[in-house]
């Protein structure tokens, strides 16, 4: 015969099932209140013959130790994002959810559709989280490389060694762009042998396609992600300069006008040295 207390449904054969909590009918005295409040935020409650174990999300390893004490060893994992994950007997992982049933011997049941959903969606979610984490890492590396004044010298220790191959091997376009920015867009365009889109009056417009934008919503348009630069030779020193221009510049004229904020650079310029 089972009974329910503070959202815990207990039965001798099935262990504990957390049904989710409601505030009604629980809080009668001081002790009950404290238990109710604690259980209210709990993710998992395991009721063994000796004690009740309460597991909270985003908590320290102390509760993990307690739950591992209560359950067969190695059944509970902590994911890198610090959520609790229960490892089923078949090796599959899933998050601890409301409505799951944990038996005294550690067997889990009641995951139902959630387990199916997680098996299907989990890898994709993990991939996105992984890419978000890598993007955060590379943005920080970029800030350290391009804006070192914001960082203390002792923490400015880039560990990566970028090459054109390693940048192009990156599968995420956004991260690829960040890596190219660290590498240096002019150097990247030169080393990657960027195509010359337009040439006029000794200027070359270089363009390299880093990939396409990834649409997130149905209304998003897939656009090419380009980096562009203007290649020019200084008439005084014969030195070649490559200077970055916005990716939407169509030709040398537009790029020069953007660069010098003029209307008709090539039409009006007299002396150039």
């Amino acid at each position, binding site marked *: 015969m089972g009974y329910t207390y503070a959202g815990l449904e207990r039965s001798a054969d099935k262990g504990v099932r957390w049904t989710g909590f409601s505030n009604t009918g629980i809080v009668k005295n001081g002790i009950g209140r404290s238990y109710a409040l604690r259980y209210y935020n709990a993710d998992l409650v395991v009721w063994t013959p000796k004690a009740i174990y309460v597991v909270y999300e985003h908590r320290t390893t102390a509760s993990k130790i307690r739950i591992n004490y209560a359950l067969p060893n190695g059944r509970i994992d902590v994911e890198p994002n610090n959520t609790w994950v229960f490892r089923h007997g078949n090796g599959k992982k899933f998050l601890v959810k409301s409505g799951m049933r944990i038996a005294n011997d550690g067997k889990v049941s009641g995951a139902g559709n959630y387990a199916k959903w997680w098996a299907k969606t989990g890898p994709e979610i993990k991939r996105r989280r992984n890419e978000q984490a890598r993007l955060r890492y590379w943005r920080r590396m970029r800030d350290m490389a391009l804006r070192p004044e914001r960082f203390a010298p002792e923490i400015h220790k880039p560990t990566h060694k970028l090459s054109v191959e390693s940048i192009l091997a990156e599968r995420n376009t956004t991260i690829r762009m960040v890596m190219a920015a660290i590498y240096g867009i002019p150097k990247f365009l030169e080393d990657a042998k960027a195509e010359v889109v337009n040439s006029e009056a000794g200027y070359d417009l270089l363009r390299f396609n880093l990939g396409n934008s*990834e649409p*997130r919503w149905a209304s998003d348009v897939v656009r090419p992600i380009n980096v562009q630069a203007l290649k020019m030779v200084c008439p005084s020193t014969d030195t070649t300069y490559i200077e970055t221009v916005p990716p939407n510049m169509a030709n040398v004229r537009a790029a020069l006008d953007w660069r010098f904020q003029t209307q008709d650079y090539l039409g*009006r310029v007299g002396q150039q040295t």
Partner: protein
Amino acid sequence: MTIEAIDYSRMRTIRQGDVFFIPVGGADYVEKHSGRNSWDRVQDVEGGIIQRGESTGHAHRLEDTRRGFLKKVGSGLFVVVAGALGAKVIHEEHKPVTLEPDTTYQVQIAREFDYGAEEASFVRD
């Protein structure tokens, strides 16, 4: 004899390295287009240095500060060539350029696109 007004918008622009000189008017252009407010007050720039390179320390500068004057109006920098002789702008690497007499030039510094900063605005992922 007729005196034709000079069309400064048709005058040739001049570039020396990353510094671009655009003729905007006569020698009195800055006085005409300034006021007493903080954003259009004329400030004299001493030394004749138009732009100094950050890493090399090389500078675009007026060869003779008696022929050309640097004026700052708001955030804009102007070279006023007052005399009839023109003014020469020199640089350690680039060949000198000569600015026309009785002309005011607006100084424009070439800009670059910062892919490091702008990446987030056009790459949506």
